[in-house]
Structure formats: C-alpha cells, structure tokens
C-alpha cells in the first residue's frame, strides 16, 4: 500500500511541475514577445525581427500545447481518484458529486438515485407521489444532462469504473481516452 501511495503522490507532483513550467513559459513568452514587437516596430524587415517572431510563435504554441497536456494529466488524476473513491465504498459520494456536476435539480437527484437503485417508473412515481409522466420526463432530462442514451447506460456510468482493470494507479491511455469522451 505504501508503494501505491508514494506512486500516487508522484502522480500528483507531475501536474505541479508541469504547471510551474507552463507559467514560466508563459511569462518568458510575454517578455520575448514584448521585445520582439519592439524590434519589429523599429525595423519590420530585419532578419532578427523575423527570427524573433518565429521564436515567439513557437513559445506561444508551446504554452498552449503544455496547457492541453496539463489538463489531460489532471483529468486522468481526477478519474483515478473517482475510481478509488468508488472502490473504497464511497459510491454515494461519487454519485452525489456527479449529479451536482451534471447540474441535476434536487428533484432530479432524488429520481436519479431511485432509478440507480433499480426502481421502475411506477415505483418512483408512487414513492414520490407524482404522476408517471412527470417521472418519465425527469428521467429523460437526467439522461440528457448525463449524456447517456438510457437507463442501462446511466447505471453503467457509475459501475464502469469498477470493471476496469486499472484499479492500480498506473497511468492508463484508456482512462484518459474515456475522460476525454466524457467531458
């Protein structure tokens, strides 16, 4: 377990270093672009000016690309954390957080939870003292907000993490791909 947790903290330090370098690059790019623009204004056709513009362009492109890479790393970490929380038996926390992230209303959260527990529309309607049509409409809105096709996919959204073989914290291409798919 200690081996795992030290690996986890190593995973956590990587984005920190990436972010620090990204900011350094950004600040350097601003200084360099400021200098290059000054030189360009003095003499737009000088070879130095053109070279400086090229370097400035490369710096800016580097900043943007590092940013995207950092975001991918952070999303991978978040997925791993959610997976671990699910595995630790904190599924109800994971569900509550995810419902909030999808922007479900309190009523939709209740209905969504009951649906996850396996109750069908008539049961949910009876429990909540609502019309079946209302519950059906709420479920449709929940699926739309979660971006799933229906109840089976809705339930699978939360179980899927547990069925992966990457419960160990190994960085995993599949996880990253799935995160990208979800966001």
């Amino acid at each position, binding site marked *: 377990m200690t081996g795992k947790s030290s690996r986890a903290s190593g995973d956590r330090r990587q984005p920190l270093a990436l972010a*620090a370098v990204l*900011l350094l690059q*950004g*600040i350097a790019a601003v200084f360099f672009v400021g200098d290059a623009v000054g030189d360009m204004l003095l003499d737009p056709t000088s070879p130095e000016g053109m070279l400086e513009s090229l370097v400035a362009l490369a710096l800016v492109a580097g*900043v943007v690309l590092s940013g995207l890479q*950092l975001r991918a790393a952070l999303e991978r970490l978040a997925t791993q954390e959610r997976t671990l929380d699910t595995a630790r038996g904190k599924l109800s*926390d994971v569900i509550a957080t995810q419902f909030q992230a999808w922007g479900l209303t309190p009523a939709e*959260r209740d209905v969504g939870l009951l649906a996850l527990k396996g109750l069908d529309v008539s049961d949910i309607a009876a429990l909540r003292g609502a019309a079946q049509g209302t519950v059906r409409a709420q479920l449709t809105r929940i699926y739309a907000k979660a971006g799933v096709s229906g109840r089976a996919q809705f339930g699978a959204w939360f179980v899927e993490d547990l069925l992966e073989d990457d419960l160990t914290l190994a960085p995993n291409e599949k996880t990253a791909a799935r995160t990208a798919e979800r966001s």
Partner: protein
Amino acid sequence: MSRDLDRGAEAAPLPPDPWDPLVRISHWLIAGVVLVNGLLSKPGGNLHVWLGWVALGTLAVRLLWGFVGPSEARFSAFLPDPVGALRHLRDLLRGRPSEYPSHNPAGAIMVYALWGCLAIVVATGLVMTDMKSPVTIAEDRAAVAAGDWSVLVDDSETAESDHEGDGIAKELHELAANLMLLLAMVHVGGVVIESRALRRNLVRPMLTGRGKMK
C-alpha cells in the same frame, strides 16, 4: 466518519476540491506581485517594471487556462452572475452558504474585478513605460549612464499629447492599483468569513490543492 454517515445522495455534494496547480501557482504569484509592487517596490523602478511583466505573463496564462483548463478553472464554471452573488451573500449572512464546484458567485465577481483591475494596472503601466520591455529599459538606462543621452530624445511629433496621456495613465494606474489592494483585502475577509461559515479551511486547498479530509 460521521461526515460519511449523514450523507445520502440527496444531501449536499462533497466539498469541492477544485484548485489545480496552475490556478494555485498563478494565484500566489499574482498575490505576491500585487503586494510587492503595491506596497514595497519603487514605482517606475526596475523591479517594479519586471514584476509588472511577470503579472502580465501570469494573467495571460491564467486567462488562457480559463478556456483550456479543467472544468473548475474554466470561465464557464463561474460566469459573472450578480443576482447569484447577492443571493450567496444573503445566505452567508444567514450563516448557511451552499457549496459550489468552482468559485461561489460572489467570489466569481471578485475574481473578475481583480483581473479587471490588474489588466488596467498592467495596460497603463505599459503606456507609462512606452511599451518598452524591462530589458530595453535597462539597456536605455545603461546607455544614459554611459553618456549617450540620445535615447532620452522624444522623436515623436505628438510628444505633447503623449505627456498628457501619460498623466491620465498615471492617475488610472494608481487608482486601479489602490482599488485592487482594497478588493484584495475584501477578498481575504470574504475567505475568512466563508471558512468560518463552512467550517473548513478554504486557504488550504489554494495552498496544497487538497481540500477533502480523507
């Protein structure tokens, strides 16, 4: 553990754990620059100009991060919402603010106000230094020190109006800088009050990125 027990799915979601490393580092960098340039460094001095450019770079990266960053850092997570901000302040006065996955609506308004002030301060600072980078300024000063005064000659025909513009820029620079320091104090006060109301330390996630008690 009791935290887990009383938490059904309909209870409030987990306290968010939102600050990624880029948000954290840029936050403290800008806080440091604002404090040093606002209170310590000599206005117009070398250090002052260098730090101003650092703030410009940091702000640029943070604004870029508002488009490409993770969801909590993106502008879409904390669009300006004055009505929501007032509602949040009312809830806060009653002692039961709700949790938000990113900035709370009042905090979001503060973020935009601080960024706006910083942008004005940086822009007017650039006007006052004729957009010269600190490297150029240092070179010019070295030249003057070496006896070459030609860099001091203002060769633009609009020198007159330029100086007038500089006066306005200076006024704006000081006004926005003082406003920013004032807002920063309100911001710190808000963090203290909200930490008390939510019964958790809101500074720690900005320092270590770990808000949840595991």
